[in-house]
């Protein structure tokens, strides 16, 4: 699927962008899509990530193969990453006199997570990533969506996935940035703005009937439900604005898979493989039909 150019100057190969949305540990399912694209020889022009999806996109663009990402996640993700409680913050939530909690705080300490990002990305910068990769974060003070396209990859991945108030936001260029889930859970608009012809989006859905238990499960469920509406509104707008094909790869789970359930990685990958199998004909068809669609556009 390499780009055969024509005399008129335009390429017959569509510009292909992949958008991996938020999903915490479930974003690991995107590896199945990376596998498929690699096997089909589909060259990517843009990766857009949000939250857990940012980690996956950054790994791929940093040069890790899908197999290496599989191995790394199995090795590095550990339940302990999510067990380092910041008691000062926790007490601050319970009682303002006992501790401190403000918009730079988090219930969990981010040190271990940051160490993993340091190990994965070292001093790599977003500008160095191939294909071009941009990550969605949210300005915690204003709620505004922020697209990170320059600077430290490890800081950008952390910002995009810092699920405030569970994890504290990070200060980048004078702004406190946290999880992109709050502004664009599946940032399809960024791929449209960057003129991608075929856009493959990866989103995640849990079909849990069990009532959430405890503060964090209730909070997480609430965020998932509200941001799903946001994602759908943005997808609707995106389809109205886009010129060729947006293909959703919808990864479904029949139960809740919380952030810390690292033992579920094989299940997550299997769900990703099933979703990709359902979408592969549509992906290939969108790429193959691009030259003809482009000719028809020119004629009309």
């Amino acid at each position: 699927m390499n780009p055969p150019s024509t005399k008129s100057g335009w390429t017959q190969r569509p510009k292909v962008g992949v958008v991996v949305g938020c999903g915490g540990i479930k974003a690991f399912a995107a590896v199945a899509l990376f596998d498929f694209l690699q096997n089909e020889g589909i060259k990517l022009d843009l990766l857009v990530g949000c939250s857990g999806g940012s980690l996956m996109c950054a790994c791929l663009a940093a040069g890790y193969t899908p197999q290496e990402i599989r191995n790394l996640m199995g090795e590095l993700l550990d339940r302990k990453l999510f067990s380092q409680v910041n008691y000062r913050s926790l007490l601050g939530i319970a009682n303002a006199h006992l501790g401190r909690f403000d918009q730079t705080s988090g219930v969990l300490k981010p040190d271990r997570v940051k160490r993993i990002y340091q190990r994965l990305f070292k001093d790599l910068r977003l500008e160095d990533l191939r294909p071009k990769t941009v990550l969605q974060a949210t300005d915690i003070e204003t709620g505004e969506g922020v697209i990170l396209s320059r600077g430290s990859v490890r800081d950008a991945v952390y910002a995009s996935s810092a699920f405030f108030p569970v994890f504290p936001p990070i200060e980048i260029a004078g702004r406190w940035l946290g999880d992109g889930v709050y502004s664009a859970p599946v940032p399809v608009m960024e791929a449209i703005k960057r003129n991608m012809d075929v856009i493959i989006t990866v989103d995640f859905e849990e079909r849990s009937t069990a009532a959430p238990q405890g503060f964090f499960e209730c909070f997480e469920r609430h965020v998932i439900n509200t941001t799903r509406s946001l994602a759908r509104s943005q997808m609707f707008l995106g389809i109205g604005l886009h010129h060729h094909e947006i293909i959703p790869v919808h990864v479904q789970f029949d139960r809740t898979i919380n952030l810390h359930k690292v033992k579920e990685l094989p299940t997550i990958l299997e769900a990703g493989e099933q979703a990709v199998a359902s979408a592969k004909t549509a992906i290939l068809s969108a790429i193959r039909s691009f030259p003809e669609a482009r000719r028809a556009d020119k004629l009309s």
Partner: protein
Amino acid sequence: MQCTEDTIMQYTIETMGQAFILRLQGALDTADVADLEQQLEKLLDDGARQLVVDCSELAYVSSSGLRVFLQAYKRLTAINGKLVLHSLNRLVSQIFETTGFTMMFPVFQSREEALRGLAVTGMLPKLRPSL
């Protein structure tokens, strides 16, 4: 359930009272949208104001197919017309859900319900909860 390459799109148009029934068969994607778009344009130019899209045999719809519905919807609502859909299969229903199209399009379980939906101003489909 997935989109397969052997599901070439076909469609028929019939009338039922004042309503035009567009029955889609197969997969609606880039390859077919131009033709369908033209047919719908012609239908609306000829005065159609009530459009029922029968999706009972629609195997798959891509984003370019959804845009065809969106264009028709915009034209129809501008002239107080209506567009409703019915009998979406599981895959198409999921596509409508994940792309937010169920927020805008009235979707019904059967043709009868869709026709009743056309007759009642502001009737909301069962898929969308309302207060």
